[in-house]
């Protein structure tokens, strides 16, 4: 008698859970997040393209090589994504509790050095050795995260500063261990530890020279962290503390304990990230091997909006960038450092969600204004287009003269910056757009004069033409201005 209703209950639960996921995917919030992230990435790619054009690379071939490289070497993408995923989860978990673990790097170093020590100092049976290394790495990371956690919770020391400082301390400490200290590989001139024993190595999968079971471990952590955050009491408490510490405390949650533990668990994930990298790929501890993985973890978490599945997406994206970066270097001759530039730009754009909102709001306003007032709107639209053109060409046009004339380069930069002001002033429908347009065209004339005197005929003619166009547009705007005011009054 009792069993039937229970099964029905479970079924309805099941379907409602499915509906929940479905609703979430359809919800406005989720869509706007996706929209913001996509636009941010696109804007980062556009700005990176401008930098590429300005420095004499071809962005089209660079991006196609980047994409192709990521697709062709998908095993490398997953390999690169593995530590990013774990470090990203680490940062995201702490953030759920309202804490910024900016020193994931240090926990990663502490975890990996501890795992390396167990890896080469003890001879253990095959399966046990791997697990022992993982466990000790996670533990070391946990403790190194717990320390700033306790300091934050019970002594009020801000975690951004303490984790950062402890991270640098960890780098120096491990450097000592493998250079002058007890873990230095005897007879080696480099700062490295001995190789870990084969029993501690994590095996490769799919016959790939890069991809290993480490990715599977990292991937399994995603649902695990998601479950922990969303379905367990402690995860709930941590989120509550993150949302509003005071309210959580009033509700009887031990905020301090949760904060300390959240940073500890975050450190454990970072420790795991370092450990699996050593066990699956490096097999020994090199001084400074991670090259900013902890920092990459922040970018991944930021891009994934601190949700575990979002972090997976972010890790795959940046993993793709990293794997494609080396392909881009060999096939499109664009230095792989470009990837780091893109990464930084993505973070900067994601950091400012209001920029996207601002752009879409004013973009729509601008478009409808042009539609309603074509007479004054069209010159403004031209000026807007002129701004975009000059923002590009400002740096590009003076390119040939970079080697000889520094002032010309500065002028070009000035034009590019000023052109951004043209775009902004037009978007917010500010009257000053005509003056700025005028100023920019004067700058162009200056560049033209400099170009002709320095025998750069191409620069001279281009700037002369652009300057003239600017003057015409500026005069056009000024001529139609009275009607602009009338038009606006008419609307109001």
């Amino acid at each position, binding site marked *: 008698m009792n069993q039937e209703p229970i099964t029905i209950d479970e079924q309805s639960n099941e379907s409602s859970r499915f509906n929940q996921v479905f609703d979430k995917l359809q919800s406005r919030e989720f869509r706007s997040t996706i929209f913001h992230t996509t636009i941010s990435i696109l804007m980062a790619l556009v700005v990176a393209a401008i930098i590429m054009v300005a420095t004499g690379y071809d962005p089209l071939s660079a991006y196609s090589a980047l994409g192709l490289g990521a697709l062709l070497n998908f095993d490398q993408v997953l390999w690169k994504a593995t530590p990013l995923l774990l470090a990203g989860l680490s940062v995201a978990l702490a953030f759920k509790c309202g804490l910024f673990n*900016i020193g994931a790097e240090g926990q990663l170093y502490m975890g990996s050095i501890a795992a390396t020590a167990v890896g080469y100092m003890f001879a253990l049976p095959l399966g046990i050795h791997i697990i022992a290394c993982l466990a000790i790495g996670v533990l070391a990371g946990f403790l190194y995260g717990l320390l700033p956690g306790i300091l934050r919770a019970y002594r009020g020391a801000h975690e951004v*500063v303490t984790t950062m*400082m402890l991270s640098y*301390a960890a780098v120096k400490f491990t450097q000592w261990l493998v250079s002058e200290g007890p873990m230095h590989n005897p007879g080696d001139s480099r700062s490295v530890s001995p190789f870990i024993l084969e029993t501690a190595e994590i095996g490769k999968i799919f016959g790939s020279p890069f991809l290993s079971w480490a990715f599977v471990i990292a991937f399994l952590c995603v649902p695990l962290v998601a479950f922990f955050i969303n379905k367990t009491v402690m995860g709930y408490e941590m989120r509550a503390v993150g949302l509003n510490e005071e309210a959580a405390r009033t509700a009887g949650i031990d905020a301090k304990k949760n904060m300390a533990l959240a940073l500890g668990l975050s450190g454990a994930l970072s420790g795991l990230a370092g450990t699996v990298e050593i066990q699956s790929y490096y097999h020994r501890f090199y001084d400074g091997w991670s090259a*900013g993985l902890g920092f990459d973890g922040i970018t991944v978490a930021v891009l994934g909006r601190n949700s575990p599945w979002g972090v997976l997406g972010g890790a795959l994206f940046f993993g793709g960038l990293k794997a494609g970066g080396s392909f881009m270097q060999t096939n499109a001759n664009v230095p792989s450092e470009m990837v780091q530039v893109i990464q*930084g730009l993505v*973070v900067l754009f*994601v950091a400012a969600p209001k920029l996207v909102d601002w752009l879409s709001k004013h973009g729509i306003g601008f478009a409808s204004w042009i539609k309603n007032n074509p007479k004054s709107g069209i010159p403004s639209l031209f000026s807007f287009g002129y701004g975009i053109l000059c923002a590009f060409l400002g740096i590009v046009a003076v390119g040939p003269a970079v080697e000889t004339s520094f002032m010309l380069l500065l002028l070009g930069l000035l034009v590019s910056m000023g052109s951004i002001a043209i775009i902004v002033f037009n978007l917010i429908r500010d009257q000053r757009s005509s003056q700025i347009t005028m100023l920019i065209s004067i700058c162009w004339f200056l560049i033209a004069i400099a170009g002709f005197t320095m025998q750069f005929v191409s620069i001279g003619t281009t700037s002369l033409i652009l300057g003239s166009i600017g003057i015409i547009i500026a005069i056009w705007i000024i001529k139609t201005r009275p009607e602009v005011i009338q038009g606006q009054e008419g609307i109001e």
Partner: protein
Amino acid sequence: MQYDPFSLVMIAWLIKTTIQFSTPLVLTALGGMYSEKSGIVNIGLEGMMLIGAFSAVAATYFTNNPWMGILVSVIAGGALAAVHAIITVKLKGDHIVSGTGVILFATGFTTLMLEVIWGQRGVSEQVTPIPQLVIPGLSEIPFIGDIFDSLSPIVYMMFFAVIISWVVMYKTPFGLRIRAAGEDPSTLDAAGVNVETVRIIGVILSGCLAGLGGAYLSIGYGSRFGKLMTSGRGFIALAALIFGGWSPIGSFLAGTFFGFLEALDSFIQLTIPALAPYNNFIQMTPYILVVIALAGIGRSRPPKAVGVPYEKEKRA
């Protein structure tokens, strides 16, 4: 070759090196002070230093004039800081995330441009550094002469910047506004001052000073740019700022102390090679000290409204 650690020459050398190493730290910490005092967390100092160091060398390389390099480094640091300012103040973005973006961008951009301009990875070509300032007659005096014999003019700029910053911060209306923006922005707003403008100026100033600090590394102390040449000095400067309790004099003292630790590192290598293997522990000291200072009696107190975006109250 081993030197006597207690000879007068070596002590003078230690003091001189301390001054040299602390210059970029103090300049950047002072910069960080303007930003943090106005209420904007600036962990991007490292990136601003890096871009300053790079642009100083690049500008010197193209113009053959190191003074132009200094000017450009200040502008470049300020420009990068302006991006941080727009994101954090105008667009109310997260300060730490934006700072991280600034660091990543600066790291990638400088390494990229290193390859674009000089076609090589790692280091740039040598450029003319800033001429050292030799005060005539001073080098004749035995002990003091050894210290102040030939120092970069940026070192003197640093001393000057400390004094100016103290005067600006505590004796001028502008300093009062900066401090108010960080402690109690709504009062400042009620007094009819635009909080956002004050904060933006604070952040840009921080970038300018950090850029100058970076320029000292590349064309003041050395004469070329190396990949990631700041190597965490931006964070040590941040540590000095916190350790110094967010004040100009405190930043100066803490920065000098951290510079002393860095100098001690080289000093030990020259004089007591037996201790050299433990240098890493000296290098760790600034970081550990800051953690202790923050965890200790809580004497290091940040500005109250730091990290909190200021939303102007809407008229009803």
